[in-house]
């Protein structure tokens, strides 16, 4: 789209203010949510604690379906934070967009490929780290030539495709959702009251669908992260 962004150059790196602010807002929202739900932790859970435990059980279930032997317990926290962060990020742009003077400041951070690539990097780095930790560096390298030697180039290629599909799937879905919302918005503004009324139900339907997509994509991203980690941690 024709959004304009403010950039800040700092220490030789370029920061997109819109992305960073959105990430920050999402992170703060996740933290506030989780913090508010965990104030009274008791043996007999109250409503808030029940909600939090339900979310924890949900993400634990994702980890367990990828690593059924209980070795995935150390990733429970990661899956929980990842899922909540991506979910909140996906929904953020649907109801909360800040534009000042033509510059976008807050939107869905996951509608930017660099952010999703950052998240995918975290997941894949974790998978490599734990593979090296488990098999040693030699074992980790030899895993690329399994189950048969001639699969080595394919396995190497797979690392890059994993990274790209994981990050770009999320980016594509959320970005497309925002693009369509913006399109509906321009339709609403194009011919005054008539199009405004006509575009209203469209926008509502698409927003509802985007909430659904955001939830599904958060689930998919978390599940695939866990699958990649579990595949790195077993020898074929």
């Amino acid at each position: 789209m024709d959004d304009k962004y403010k950039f800040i150059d700092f220490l030789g790196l370029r920061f997109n203010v819109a992305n960073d602010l959105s990430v920050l807002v999402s992170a703060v929202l996740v933290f506030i949510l989780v913090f508010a739900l965990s104030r009274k932790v008791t043996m007999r859970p109250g409503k808030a604690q029940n909600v939090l435990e339900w979310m924890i059980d949900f993400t634990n279930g994702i980890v367990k379906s990828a690593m059924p032997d209980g070795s995935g317990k150390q990733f429970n926290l990661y899956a929980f934070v990842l899922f909540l962060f991506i979910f909140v990020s996906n929904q953020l742009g649907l109801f909360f967009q800040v534009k000042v003077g033509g510059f976008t400041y807050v939107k869905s951070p996951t509608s930017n490929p660099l952010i999703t690539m950052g998240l995918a990097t975290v997941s894949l780095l974790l998978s490599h780290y734990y593979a090296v930790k488990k098999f040693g560096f030699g074992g980790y390298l030899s895993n690329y030539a399994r189950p048969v030697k001639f699969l080595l180039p394919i396995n190497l290629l797979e690392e890059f495709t994993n990274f790209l599909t994981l990050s770009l799937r999320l980016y594509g879905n959320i970005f497309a959702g925002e693009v369509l919302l913006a399109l509906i918005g321009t339709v609403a503004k194009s011919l005054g009251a008539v199009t405004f009324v006509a575009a209203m139900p469209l926008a509502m339907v698409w927003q509802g669908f985007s909430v659904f997509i955001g939830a599904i994509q958060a689930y998919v991203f978390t599940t695939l992260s866990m699958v990649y980690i579990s595949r790195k941690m077993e020898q074929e």
Partner: protein
Amino acid sequence: MAGLLVLGANQVALGDMLFILVSFIVLALLVKHFAWGPVTKMMDARSEKITGDLDYADQERSRAEKLAKEREDALKSSRAEAVEIVSKAKESGETQKKSIVSDAHSEAEEVRQRAKSDAAKAKEDAMSDAQNDIASLSLEIASKVISKELNADDQKSLIDSYIKELTVHEAK
């Protein structure tokens, strides 16, 4: 936007990746400290407590079952004991009755025997008294009849022989 995808392009804000890395890690640490830690600890404690409670309930139930069985056994044995006591009492009553009856029998027999012997002795005494009386009486009569002092001893032997003859006659 397409320019953002080309790595190495001048406009790419690579700092964003660093930013999200750092903010994600900080978020994870904060979540761990404020929510994840306490809640998962409580969840573990709860599941442990539930397992413990279930174990305890199993244990208690088996104990209760054992106790009930013991009670039942005790009741059964006490019933048998009661039956035994009653039958024993009956038996001892029976033997006591028998012994009392036989004692009475023997006592009665003894009494009868004694009475018999007493009667025989009394008869004998009476007989000997009568013998003596008759002897002296007949002596007196004879002396009066004959008016002659007969020798008492001769007279007595005469009477004795007479009495003996009499008793033999009577015994027949």
